[in-house]
């Protein structure tokens, strides 16, 4: 008869920890999957900018003299800027909730590196913002006579404004997620500055119609520059005359968005809390 002998306990060779890149992708996958499962949130996230665009674009449709453009096209560019900044709101609220419901604490107890958590959030945001922008562009083209850039240089500008914008606002969102006292108060605490920023940054009201002191405040934040960058892509040279500086100032757009990426990163590293205030 065969005798069953328990194999000697061989200490397993120390296996390699999974790489941070693999874990970032894995986090992005589960974040995205969970995002799309909250059907109500998904519907509102995507329909909000669409509804705003249809409403604003339909109410204010007059031509902008001497440019061959109309106001509704300004809104498309503005709302694309706003969609690019969704990360600020989504991450600001989402991470505050994660802190409250125990996600952060649980993850902190695993060998997953924190960078993978943030990268997963950022990749998820990139995807959500991208889908929003694609929808807005489709509506802009279909309903409001928006012209897509014909040259590669236009798309290149679009790409860098979009990526820098999403990164900067995601980092800013991660940083502000430490402000609300709880997950419950997060949506109120974080939605308010976002709405104010949209009003003073040229999303809903053309920047040329705002008092100077307001545009000065807006100039400190990334949204104004994102909108400006997108106007340069979608309104073209004809629209440059509408800008305060009579130019899209793309160099300043790059400079300020880049500064926000670096500043946002520093802010995250110095202020991020893994625990809720209750938890000490």
């Amino acid at each position: 008869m065969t005798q069953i002998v328990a194999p000697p306990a061989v200490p397993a060779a120390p296996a390699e920890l999974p790489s941070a890149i693999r874990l970032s992708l894995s986090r992005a996958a589960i974040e995205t999957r969970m995002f799309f499962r909250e059907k109500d949130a998904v519907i509102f996230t995507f329909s909000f900018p669409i509804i705003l665009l249809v409403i604003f674009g339909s109410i204010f449709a007059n031509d902008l003299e001497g440019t061959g453009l109309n106001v509704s096209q300004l809104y498309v560019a503005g709302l694309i800027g706003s969609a690019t900044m969704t990360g600020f709101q989504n991450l600001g609220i989402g991470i505050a909730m994660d802190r409250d419901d125990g996600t952060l604490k649980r993850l902190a107890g695993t060998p997953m590196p924190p960078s993978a958590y943030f990268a997963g959030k950022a990749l998820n945001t990139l995807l959500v913002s991208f889908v929003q922008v694609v929808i807005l562009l489709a509506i802009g083209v279909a309903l409001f006579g928006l012209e897509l850039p014909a040259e590669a240089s236009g798309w290149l500008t679009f790409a860098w404004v979009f990526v820098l914008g999403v990164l900067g606002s995601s980092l800013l969102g991660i940083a502000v997620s430490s402000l609300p006292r709880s997950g419950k108060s997060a949506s109120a605490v974080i939605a308010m500055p976002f709405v104010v920023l949209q009003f003073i940054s040229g999303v809903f009201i053309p920047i040329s119609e705002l008092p100077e002191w307001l545009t000065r405040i807006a100039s400190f934040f990334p949204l104004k520059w994102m909108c400006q960058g997108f106007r340069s892509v979608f309104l073209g040279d004809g629209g440059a005359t509408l800008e305060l500086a009579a130019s899209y100032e793309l160099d300043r757009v790059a400079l300020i968005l880049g500064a926000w990426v670096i500043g946002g990163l520093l802010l995250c590293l110095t202020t991020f809390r893994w625990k809720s205030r209750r938890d000490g």
Partner: protein
Amino acid sequence: MTTAVRVRGLTKRYGDVQAVDGIDLDIRAGEVFAILGPNGAGKSTTVEILEGHRRRDGGEVSVLGTDPGRPTREWRARVGVVLQTANDVAEATVRETVRHFAGYYPSARDPDEVIERVGLTDKAGKRIRQLSGGQRRRVDVALGVIGGPELLFLDEPTTGFDPEARRQFWELIQGLAHQGTTIVLTTHYLDEAEALADRVAVIAKGRIVAEGDPATLGGRATAEATVRWAGGSVETGTPTKTVLELTRQFDGEIPELAVTRPSLEDVYLRLIEG
């Protein structure tokens, strides 16, 4: 016998409150060690310091040979943590979540096997949001053990369970202990400590007031027994003799006879009041 956890002179203060006031602990590899104590006694603070979730003010701590104040990914992979409360990953299914967490570890256990071990195989496709409190807790345990930890921390694992769910949970923990996992658990329930733990420590006001086998804790086994019958009771060191005398006195059956030793609860209550 190797030491899994070694603590010397651990202190932690929150503002004016000295939450942990000089704790020493030695937890051996392979044992189930329970930390008992009233709310605010410092047991969760102590465990959170051991888990690497909280900084200590003073003292020496070594968990699996590493200072948990400086946790590395390699160390995290060897330690499993089941926290007190969590309501996260509500929209993912049990199987997705366990598989996802398995990906964090260098040599994770088989996710389906772990789900089977915690008794959730028939719920594996359900979203975590739809589970009962007890089932959620099983997910917590599954995520705590998926990495195949050498040491598992369980912070008040059965709070809010019904008696049946608690029994099933105990069997799960006993099974893990049989496989050689060192388990450190905090609990309010003395029957839980008695059922699961090889050794217990009682913490009160930030200090350890007693430590040992739950059966002999605080001189429990040698304490005077109480003999009670219809018409009287007596505390005695020689209960057998008392019963014999009573047998003669009643000439046979002693009405309503009971011989009791102090329960773990009696000992515990005396310890934390002292």
